[in-house]
């Protein structure tokens, strides 16, 4: 029941895009649940592209890289794309350091 509520709150399908509102902190503890949920919605055919919204996110480690790269591998099979939006300075640095900027579309927060 709690999971259902969480699902509705954090995952929304708009047209072909699955919008994922990411939590404040993304580490190995958090990443597992998010990737499972995204995969489930993708496999149900509800969307073919994923938009990760970092608006609320203040921390991410390399588990976040695994999360995004893993979804990218799935989404390309559906001819979809992966986007990262509202990315702050810290997250941007991590995305670029790992080379994810070559696979996904990154949109930063205004201030950066």
């Amino acid at each position, binding site marked *: 029941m709690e999971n259902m509520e969480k699902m509705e709150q954090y995952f929304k399908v708009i047209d072909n895009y699955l919008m994922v509102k990411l939590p404040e*902190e993304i580490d190995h503890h958090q990443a597992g649940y998010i990737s499972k949920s995204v995969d489930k919605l993708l496999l149900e055919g509800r969307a073919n592209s994923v938009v990760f919204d970092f608006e609320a996110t203040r921390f991410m*480690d390399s*588990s976040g890289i*695994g999360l995004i790269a893993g979804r990218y591998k799935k989404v390309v099979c559906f001819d979809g794309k992966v986007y990262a939006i509202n990315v702050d300075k810290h997250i941007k640095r991590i995305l670029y*350091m790992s080379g994810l900027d070559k696979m996904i579309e990154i949109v930063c927060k205004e201030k950066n």
Partner: protein
Amino acid sequence: MDGKMNRMKMEFRALSANESLARMTVAAFMTPLNPTLEEISDVKTAVSEAVTNAIIHGYGEDRESDEMVEMSCYIEKDVLHVTISDEGVGIENVDKAMEPLYTTKPELERSGMGFSFMEAFMDELSVESEPGKGTKVHMIKKIGLASWMEKEED
């Protein structure tokens, strides 16, 4: 004792829920050095990588309840030292493990960037490991603003 020297040590069960506990603790411990937001982010990321490694690689999936990760920190002048150690399986080839993108657990979607991030975000990183005995990761970072502010006060 020198007022500019401080140390702490903690031990916690090898559970992923404790990853945030560890990085929050270090962030709080380093506040007297007046770190910038960027420095706090850097240290938190590096600590998170090291602790995650201890939990998922050191101890892996077959875990007993007494598997613990130890974290000790000390501050010497404006330099933060963090040591994270486990008594897990150890690393057979440390150089290989430290290569970017190398991972032994692709099925868990590990990106293989853990050690690269530790190296990038800290000033120094050293890894001691013995198969069957465990792994110890030692990281050092000079926290910039502290020494500058001290000069200002003089």
